[in-house]
Each structure stands twice: as C-alpha cells, then as structure tokens.
C-alpha cells in the first residue's frame, strides 16, 4: 500500500472562482478550511501565512475565510505549523483546530497526540488535519539560491511556484521560467532523503496536484473525521469531484512516484543504518513490507 490507508480517492476542486484563482491546485485545502470554519467544525486553522519576506511563510492561526485565503498557495520552504498548534489552543483559545501539514509534520502531530508530553489538552483539540503531498522541501536560502542563480530570476518577481512534470516552475507577471528538477537536487533538506511518505498517509484528508489535470487535485479521505468533513463539503457544493479513473494521468503516476520515493529513501535509510547513524525508521530487513512508512 504505497499510498497509505484510505477510504476513497477522487479528483476534486473548489467550486469557488476566487479560490480557484489563488489556490495552488484545486484549492482543496482552502475550500475545506473555509467550509469547516463556516460550519463551525473548526474554530481556526493553522496555515502557512505570509510574512514581510515574500515566499517565506510563517505559521499563522487563521480564524476567518480571508485569513485562510491569504495563506493559499504552496511555499517551497519550511513553515513549522506544528509549533503553532499549542499556541492555537492556548493563547488563541481554540478548541477545534484545523491544520495543514506536510507528511513529516503529520508524523510529529500524530506522535504528539499519542504521547502528549508538554501539550496537555491539545491532542483532542485537533479536529481536522489536512495533509499535502510532498516530494521534498527546501531551506529558504536554497530556494533563493537556485531561483536567482540557476534560473537567473529575482525571487521577488515570482508570483507562483510549482513542481510538476519533472520541473520546478516559477511564474512572473508575464513569463514562465522552468528548471529541471535534477538541477534542484542537493538543495533539498537532508532529512527528505529518508522520508518514506509522499501522500501524507497520516492525515485525515490528504491532497496534492499529482494524478489529476491542472486546476484539479487528488484527494484521499483517510479517517472518519476526514471523510465526514470532505463529504459534507461536497454535499454542500463547495467542492466538486470526478472519479479518479476518469481523469488523466490518474492514480498510476501517484503510485509510481510514491514507490520511487520510498524505494530511494529505504536505500538511504539502510545505508545510514549500516553506518550506525540514528535513523527514526526501521531498516528494510526489519520490516515485512519494506515500503511501509514505519
């Protein structure tokens, strides 16, 4: 099961024209949070909000649709959202917290929930964890470096960034720049090399662009809570869906990329373990399924 445990997978997008315009892909993350806020299923969401520095996000507690939308779009650098969860429950006084997280952050969240040391009364307040797919992430200085040095582009002119079809894409007001992904290798953070999770296997709902056409997202519902909220949002008409088998490129590509990521990562894990380095995963020899995320 290279795509983790899930109930259903569909192609989906937000039906809201404004969200479609500003979101990274199908606007699933923003649409779900706006819907959940409206319906009081959450009373706030921790998102990667904007800061004074363009493309450098900071964890932000969004309590209105405007604040959710201000944080839409992917930033290819760290936003330590997990750190903000406790503050959301404490200083912000939230009791039903939503959060968006990349796979490694979800691991932290689930671990924190099962062993809530120093986070009393937080575990049960996380009402909706939306996971986004992730192949790798870059330190801010890395991102700036390859954009300005390899693409010859001032990062301040970039209006949208994306990864897809083997390339890193940067859109300015009137141009599109690309960089083959192999040119970005070496710039990602070191931990990503041992990361076994591509599709946010531990989320309530996980979503990403791969598998579906431009402007659409692939969505997995994984937990009861995630399924309930996603279905209600579809029912309410804020999200529209298509069967995954009816869209191109479909689940096959996702399976291939997830398998590649896990296979590559397992090799690095095994190598590092052989050298006696501490790695928070089992070696392939210790696992029944070498590609399992454990």
């Amino acid at each position, binding site marked *: 099961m290279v795509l983790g445990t899930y109930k259903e997978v569909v192609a989906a997008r937000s039906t809201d024209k404004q969200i479609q315009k500003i979101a990274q892909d199908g606007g699933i993350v923003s649409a779900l949070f706006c819907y959940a806020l409206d319906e009081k299923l959450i009373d706030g969401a921790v998102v990667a909000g904007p800061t004074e520095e363009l493309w450098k996000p900071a964890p932000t507690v969004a309590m209105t649709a405007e604040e959710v939308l201000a944080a839409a779009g992917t930033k290819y650098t760290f936003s330590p959202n997990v750190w903000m969860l406790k503050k959301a429950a*404490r*200083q912000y*006084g*939230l009791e039903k917290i939503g959060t968006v997280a990349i796979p490694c952050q979800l691991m932290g969240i689930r671990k924190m929930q099962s062993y809530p040391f120093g986070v*009393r009364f937080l575990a049960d307040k996380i009402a909706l964890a939306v996971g986004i797919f992730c192949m790798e992430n870059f330190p801010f200085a890395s991102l700036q470096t390859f954009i300005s040095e390899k693409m010859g582009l001032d990062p301040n002119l970039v209006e949208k960034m994306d990864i897809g079809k083997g390339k890193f894409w940067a859109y300015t007001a009137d141009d599109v720049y690309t960089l083959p992904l192999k040119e970005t290798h070496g710039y990602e953070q070191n931990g990503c090399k041992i990361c076994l999770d591509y599709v946010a296997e531990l989320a309530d709902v996980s979503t990403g662009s791969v598998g579906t056409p431009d402007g659409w997202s692939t969505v997995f519902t994984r937990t009861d809570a995630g399924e309930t909220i996603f279905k209600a949002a579809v029912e309410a008409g804020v999200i529209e869906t298509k069967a995954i088998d009816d869209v191109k490129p479909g689940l096959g590509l996702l399976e291939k990329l997830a398998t590649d990521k896990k296979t590559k990562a397992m090799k690095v894990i095994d190598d590092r373990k052989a050298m006696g380095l501490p790695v928070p995963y089992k070696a392939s020899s210790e696992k029944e399924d070498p590609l399992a995320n454990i």
Partner: protein
Amino acid sequence: MSERVVISPTSRQEGHAELVMEVDDEGIVTKGRYFSITPVRGLEKMLTGKAPESAPVYAQRICGVCPIPHTLASVEAMDDSLDIEIPKAARQMRELVLAAHDVNSHAIHHFLIAADFVPENLFATAVNSVSEIRKTAQYVVDMVAGEGIHPSDVRIGGMADNISEVARKKLYARCKALKPKVDAHVELIVGLVADKGLPAGLGVHNQPILTTDNLYGDRENFDLDRFTEIMPESWYDDAEIAKRACSTIPLYDGMNVEVGPRARAAKFRGFTEKGVVAQHVARAMEMKSALSKMIAILAELDTSAPVRADFDVRGTNKLGIGAIEGPRGLDVHMAQVANGKTQFYSCLVPTTWNIPTMGPATEGFHHEFGPHVIRAYDPCLSCATHVIVVDDEDRSVIKNEMVRI
C-alpha cells in the same frame, strides 16, 4: 501526668509532617510541636551557576501543588535582580494567573477537608462543585500561562505571549458564568464548617500575621532586614524532634508568624476572626475575591499590548526579591545574577512560615482537635523540603536518619 500523642504523618495534606502533642490527664494539649519530616530541598543549589532563565523552570517543579506561585516568585526575583520593569499587560496576566490558581488551589483544599465537614448526603454536591470550579480556573491558567501545572509562558521580563482577543472574550465569559457557582460553593463550605460546631477559640494564637499584598504580592512590603532564620535545634525544646525536623524556622521581627488567606483577609479585607473556623472562612471567601479580580482583569486586558520587556541578562549581582502571595501564604524567592549566571538563589516558602506556629496553635484543646488545627493551614510540605535519592537501587536518601515515615 503528661502523655504524648504523636500523629505521624499528619494526613490529608501534601508532603509528610509529624504532630507531637503533650497532653494532660483530660487529654488537653499542653504543648504542641509540628515539624516537617520531608527532608532536604536541594533546589537552590541546583540553580546556582545556571542561566537565570532556568530558575522559573526549575523552581516551578519544587511542588505540584503550588507551581504557579513558585514560577511567579522566581521570575519576580529575577526581574528585580536584573532591574526589569515589566509591561503593564504582562503584570495583569501574571495577576490573572495567580488569582486563577488561588481559586483552583482553595477548591482542592476543600477536597482535603471534605471528610471533616461534608456529610454523606452532600458529598457528591461538594465534589462536583470543586471539580467544576477547578475546570474553569485551570482552563484560565492553561490559556494564559501555557500549562496548568508547570506554566511555560511566564517568563523573566513578562510573559511569552499575550492572549488573543478571542481567548480573552472566551475566558471573560467563562469566569462570569463561574461566579454564581463560586458563590454557591463558598456558601456551602462556610455553612458546613459552621455546622461542625468546633469549639470556640480552637486554633487561636497570638502570633503576628505576615502578608505583603491583598492577592498578588509586593516585595516592597517584605523587609529582608526584619527576617531571620534559625535552625530547628534552637527552636524545638526537644532534642530528638530538633534533630529530625527538616525545615529551618523563619522569623519576622524575631517572631514566628501566620501566613495565608486569613493573614491576607485580616490585613487587607478587614477580617477580624481568628482560629480554625476563621481560616476556613477566609480561604473560602478569598475564592470570591480572586474570581472577581480575574473578571476585572479580563474585562480590561489590552490583548494587543506588548507583554515582554527587553533586558540585559548579565546582571549586577543585585539581590532580587520576588514576593508572591500563594494560596497557602507568602512565597519569597531571592536571586542574584551576575555575569549572566545565577550566583545565589533561595526560597522561603509558605508552609515553612507556618510550621512553628501550627504546633502551639493546637494547645488548650483536646488532642482530637489537633488534626483540625493542622489542616486549617492547608499545609504543603513538599515545597518546604525535598528528598534527594542518592541510590535508585535501594532508594536510600541523603540524611536517611531524618526520615521516619
């Protein structure tokens, strides 16, 4: 003929202590001695040489019963040593946290004395009342100070963060809603204590009271020059007890004192009663004062104001004093910082003040009332003293000769 009645350890209090009463033929106490048998608090020594920021983190772990007063006394001592003026909103948040802790802690004491005063048919009512009050009070501490037990967000120079406007309104509404519950609770407890019909004058003594502030604490009202500390050997007129007693005897103007809710009520709220019943009444009534203070602060806290001052952590070796009125009385921490490190640290914790007063307060009444006198102080021995286990295998402790539990 005089006989000895020994209660060891005294029960329904935090930590271990012993009450030794000499009684006459009628069973009336002629001489009462109360002393701690929870040995050695090494905490101050652990703090010296460390960064000042470590102090509140360690000090709050002195005791799980009053971690909030220890945290506050610690940061106040550090603020003073480093000459920091904290922002107004930070001060309000600290006062809010302490008031909430007061409500919570007094409610816990009502658990401890329930067996003394609450009849069977009202037990569930009393316990539910305590639980409901604690839930809201602890929620306030959680939100404002980061954690209900070991608050992470009370910092040198103020607080880590202000709360949001949403949180302020939520807490304000909850505290308002708590008011009728606290009023009913106080009425219940005061009524039940009266119903018990304890003998008039039980626990009355002539020692002075010591308190620095109505509810928060004020270092200006604690005069270090008037404070002395003697060893148990020169206090207890019984060599065996003096040897086993594990806390020093703090004196103010050369006298042992009473600290706590009755002391505060007497000095700041015109309360004139004395003795066991008065202590219970003052403690219960203080829940109302604390709650009304919480409501007032939450009504006016500016959630956009800064809550942390900038400061130079190096220090000038000034002796800083943090004086906090904990639920059980005045908690003083003293700290000196130089070269960015804590040079000296000392705590004068609430129950230590009361210990020398509590024994004699049992005198003149039948020894069966002794435990009532002790529990009226809500003693907490854990912060008065601490064990250091030197060998985990056989659980042996430093100065093993002192422990007789």
